[in-house]
């Protein structure tokens, strides 16, 4: 190996709270001969989550120091023209001098971007978020999952890139387009044969060769399968014997698209021991295979494993269809609210809002939003304020209600007065309610969520919402 590559310094991961019980939900399609035999869970984003919020949540632990570059990766990004990486910079309160780019085009885009960052030896945050649509009855509607994953690269991380290879191959296993924005899949047998034998396996073999190891020396794998069960074919073709954490992730949360391989990589790192070789392979219009040598535990890997163990299972089919946008429920006249956001206002307030930046006045009181004259009762005039980010602080619920009159796509509309431990107080929307709901005194953490959606103009805004400080343990029923 003549080229010096970078390393992974830390990983991040995020799944939405809700997990669909696939087997129960599939029964609703039995009449139609659809749904198939299902098992496991599908991570389902709340109405207020999208590819951007999922990517941001996965990235939050990775930006204690600002990266030089942020790459946002997704095939389901909400905007066609508006850079999400730039929004991420504001949401994560990173300097505006941060270099940014969005990548898309295939599920592989995040792994490709990661490889680029590693080869460049850059201090880069590669963040993927995915919330893909599919039509009910399509296998993807159950096999997809929503989630985010992120990787921070550098030059002195515990996971060193030691081998890599790429193959470009325009295989039409599944596609989506502007004219057909849900997946259109080819015959599974065709995909299974061609993708494994001509694309994935050769790429893995090449990467292992470059790393100077045989595939059976790989101890943990994160290989994005085009179809479930394909790792067996790849393992047979390559001689690999490692467990594939991407398979585990598919069963537990679904195929996370661009975020899938990175999330699975975190799981693989969690299972790896120092000295192990870990394989990462991204698939889609080709393949990128990366071999890492793990020298020490990777920060964030254990949290990815823990993420799989918490959540809230549901099986209400109509709820699932509504959350995934597969049906458009008529919420009546009260839902006809005007939520237009103005560019001029976003220019003035957008960065502080999505960054949840409040201000500390001259007497030390913290407030949100900032104001020229502080809210402090004894303030007598204009004071300078120092920025204080509230997004990463804990808080307590001061007052609350479940509002059943106000329109929300997923009733009830929870909101209340949130008291931050640093003294700031903010009326906020609440999200990710546990089954028992919210109560005064509940400990809270902040989550970036969609604040408003202006469907008529294709516009949305984001802000932070308060969520329970802890998620319930996922009730396990035996499957991955």
């Amino acid at each position, binding site marked *: 190996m003549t080229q010096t590559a970078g390393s992974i310094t830390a990983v991040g991961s995020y799944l939405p709270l809700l997990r669909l019980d696939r087997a129960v939900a599939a029964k609703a399609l039995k009449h139609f001969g659809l749904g198939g035999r299902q098992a496991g869970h599908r991570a389902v984003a709340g109405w207020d989550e999208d590819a951007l919020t999922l990517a941001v949540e996965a990235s939050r632990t990775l930006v204690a120091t600002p990266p030089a570059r942020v790459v946002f990766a997704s095939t389901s990004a909400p905007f066609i023209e508006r850079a999400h990486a730039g929004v991420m910079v504001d949401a994560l309160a990173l300097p505006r001098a941060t270099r940014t780019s969005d990548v898309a085009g295939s599920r592989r885009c995040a792994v490709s971007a990661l490889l680029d960052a590693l080869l460049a030896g850059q201090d880069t945050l590669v963040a993927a978020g995915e919330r893909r649509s599919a039509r009910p009855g399509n296998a993807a509607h159950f096999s997809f999952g929503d989630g985010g994953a992120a990787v921070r690269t550098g030059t002195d991380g515990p996971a060193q890139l030691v081998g890599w290879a790429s193959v470009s191959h325009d295989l039409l296993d599944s596609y989506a387009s502007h004219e057909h924005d849900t997946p259109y899949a080819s015959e599974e047998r065709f995909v299974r044969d061609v993708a494994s034998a001509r694309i994935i396996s050769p790429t893995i073999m090449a990467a292992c060769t470059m790393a100077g190891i045989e595939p059976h020396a790989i101890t943990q794998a994160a290989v994005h399968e085009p179809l479930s069960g394909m790792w067996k074919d790849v393992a047979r073709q390559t001689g690999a014997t490692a467990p594939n954490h991407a398979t585990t992730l598919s069963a537990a949360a679904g195929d996370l698209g661009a975020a899938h391989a990175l999330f699975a990589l975190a799981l693989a790192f969690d299972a790896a021991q120092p000295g192990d070789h870990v394989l990462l392979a991204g698939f889609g219009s080709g393949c990128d295979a990366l071999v890492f040598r793990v020298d020490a535990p990777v920060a964030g890997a254990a949290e990815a494993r823990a993420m799989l163990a918490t959540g809230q299972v549901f099986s209400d089919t109509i709820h699932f269809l509504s959350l995934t946008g597969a049906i458009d429920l008529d919420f009546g006249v009260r839902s006809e609210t005007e939520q237009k956001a103005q560019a001029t206002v976003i220019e003035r307030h957008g960065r502080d809002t999505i960054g949840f930046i409040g201000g500390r006045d001259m007497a030390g009181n913290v407030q949100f939003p900032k104001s020229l004259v502080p809210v402090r009762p004894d303030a007598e005039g204009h004071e300078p304020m120092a920025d204080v980010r509230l997004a990463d602080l804990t808080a307590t619920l001061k007052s609350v209600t479940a509002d059943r*009159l106000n329109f929300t796509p997923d009733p009830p509309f929870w909101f209340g007065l949130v008291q931050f431990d640093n003294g700031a107080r903010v009326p906020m929307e609440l999200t990710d309610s546990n089954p028992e709901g919210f109560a005064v005194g509940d400990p809270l953490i902040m989550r970036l969520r969609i604040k408003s959606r202006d469907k008529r103009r294709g516009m949305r*805004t984001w802000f932070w919402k308060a969520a329970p400080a802890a998620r319930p343990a996922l009730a396990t029923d035996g499957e991955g």
Partner: protein
Amino acid sequence: MATGIRDRVAIIGMGCSKFGELWDKGAEDLMVEAFEEALADAGIERSQIEAAWMGNALDDINIGNSALPLAHALRLKTIPVSRVENMCATGTEALRAAVYAVAAGAIDFGLALGVEKLKDTGYGGLPLRTKGLANDLWMPYGSAPGTFAQLAGAYSARHGIGAADLKRAMAHVSWKSHQNGALSAKAHLRKAVDMETILKAPMIADPLGLFDCCGVSDGAACAIVTTPEIARSLGIANPVTVKAIQLSASHGWETGYGEWDGASVRNTQVAAQRAYAEAGIRDPRSELSLTEVHDCFSVTELATMEDLGLSDEGRATFDILDGRYDRSGAIPCQTDGGLKCFGHPVGASGLRMAYEVYTQLNERAGERQLAQVDFGLTHNLGGAPFNSVAAVSILGRLN
């Protein structure tokens, strides 16, 4: 040194339209109905009115901006007309403007009229309003019941009142208002409702059920004011006078500074203390004959009883259950049914409250008439507990 407006302005005529879901009436009908009653009551000519203030909170719902709709409806020829808006406290704000103009000596006769035509929205409840483009980026879009429901949990936590006790006291508030509303010919809801029905009603915003929420209504109410001297010259020997009108507004303290307990409305407390001082009332519990408070939601009335100083802190639950604020109680509240049953056409409500106190002071309340009425208080609350405008007025007789 300012001395306030106590007894410097008399109310010589009041009118109030029928409140309700008035599918066949527009804002013009409502304004004319209320005004013609007030004009007849005052015994003056329309042309004697020198200035008018129109209170309307939601101008986009079939009324229109400015006060021109009032000038058009009543054909007020070239006099100054102004629209005032202060959320649900709009009605009292209109009265305050007219009263201040007379007290200042700028005019002899002023008109305050509040009107709202809410049932052209096409749905129940108040419309969701934008909070301003910058605030919309972060502030929750809560409904009115959602914002006031927050009082309940905070009140329980603050005073250690169990949810069941609080719920029962809230239900009693609504039960009492239904009893009174049934006796008010112009009220929106005129049917008595039993406690069990109230307690089992569908939830709107936890813990507020359907019967914890006031009606959303169409309606108008108005007052004609002048000086006590002119009132006497018109043959009104002992006119109803304004003892006080005070208003307190949030500046962000509740939501932005970590002091407020969420269990009370500070602006009500402040406005009440100012009003008592202006009116010369030292002991409201013994001096007030009745109150018309802003019972947009049952829990609001409960908290208001403490904020007005009529119940000790943490004791309103028990005072309510003891019947202290029933029509037969020590300090009757909402003798006309209140917002809960008389209805809540937002811009009209403050004037409707004054209309009931005025009616009681003039001993015209029929079956609802209280035995002894010396001072009546109105409490008109705009916004939400955490961001409010509270208007408190006190009416009595000149002598």
